[in-house]
């Protein structure tokens, strides 16, 4: 992708993701492949609403090197690993989106429940093993969990979503959030016998069980 087009794509995607509530403040990061050797990524520690076209950083896939100046996101390794293993991927979105994070905290795979899930996310969204942020362990575990699917959960952290275009990766992130929410409510119905789509019911159940001393 042309680098100027990539800058605009990242700027627009950042705003879109903030508006959808999939990323906030300085959390999460997004990137676009430039060619087989490099990708452009959001900078470290900067709010999406304050980014300008010049703030994105060009990172080399092979050695994660980047030009002097603005520091790229500390999760650049996760992005590089995806680009290395998946030649067809041109956009990577890493989010700390709420429902996916809840599933990631339980370190559970989320199975497909309908055609929409299968079409956009695949048969299952796997949860990667835990690795501290910014470590080799995290990038390798994430890449392994992603395999050839479009999304993976990162244990106790968030999610990574990929696509052949930024729009596709965005749709993956959005669908993942919806499907993780459905998963939470359906699992809740299984353990509590309460069919609901109200978070308040889960909170009330939690208070009841925990107050009774259930660990």
């Amino acid at each position, binding site marked *: 992708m042309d680098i100027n087009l990539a800058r605009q794509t990242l700027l627009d995607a950042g705003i879109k993701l903030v508006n959808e509530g999939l990323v906030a403040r300085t959390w999460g990061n997004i990137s676009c492949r430039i060619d087989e050797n490099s990708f452009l990524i959001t900078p470290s520690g900067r709010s999406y609403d304050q980014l300008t076209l010049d703030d994105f950083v060009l990172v080399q896939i092979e050695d994660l090197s980047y030009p002097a100046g603005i520091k790229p996101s500390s999760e650049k390794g996760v992005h590089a690993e995806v680009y290395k293993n998946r030649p067809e991927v041109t956009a990577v979105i890493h989010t700390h989106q709420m429902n996916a994070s809840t599933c990631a*905290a339980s370190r559970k795979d989320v199975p497909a429940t309908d055609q929409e899930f299968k079409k956009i996310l695949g048969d299952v969204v796997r949860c990667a093993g835990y690795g501290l942020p910014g470590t080799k362990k995290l990038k390798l575990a994430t890449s392994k969990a992603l395999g050839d699917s479009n999304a993976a959960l990162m244990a106790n952290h968030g999610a990574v979503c990929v696509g052949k275009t930024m729009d596709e990766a965005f749709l993956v992130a959005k669908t993942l959030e919806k499907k993780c929410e459905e998963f939470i409510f359906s699992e809740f119905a299984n353990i509590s016998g309460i069919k609901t789509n109200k978070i308040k019911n889960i909170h009330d159940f939690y208070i009841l*069980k925990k107050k009774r001393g259930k660990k």
Partner: protein
Amino acid sequence: MTNTDFINEIEKYMSKNILSQKNPIASIKNEDKILITSESFASDKSLAEINLISGEILSGVPNKEYKLHLEIYKKRPKESAILHSALEATTTCSIVGKTVYPMLDDMAQIVGPSAKTACIKTKTHQGCVKNILKKMKGRQAALISENGAICCASNLDDASVVAIVLEKGCKTAVESFAIGGGKKINDLECRLMHFVYTLKYSKQNEKNR
């Protein structure tokens, strides 16, 4: 920060439910004074000013919680803003009263290795204030039994980040319970993440001065 700016921020946090709609409690430190919401802030947007050293009320009628805020500022000189979070999951966890351990890296980094619950009845009592300070040690927040959480940071925006991240941590603890339970992050790794984050952040602040 001017009084008007502070009031605007409080109203913003009220609209996001970070602060209670009925009894919003927030304060900021400005040199040797603190500015805190009054008892009647929800209806008249009034503030009170207190001398940080002597504890003398210089103007207004401060929220009953002001002595707790004074003690936090005295014992933790790096803090310059305190918010009493009334967010939903935070309140749920404060009702349960058990320690919330990080199940997300964010919480370990920003809040600390856990959020403990301080059991109090009257926050103005010296013993209760001590209890809250003890529970907050090495952390940016403590849950207050049945009453949300106290969140602090070196500025108001960061205090709101602590409240938001704590809420996410509590929400994860509550909602992962519905899918069979969340996995806690190892305590040592939580402490390491909090240490690295605090160090990185203080360096960043130093650089930006």
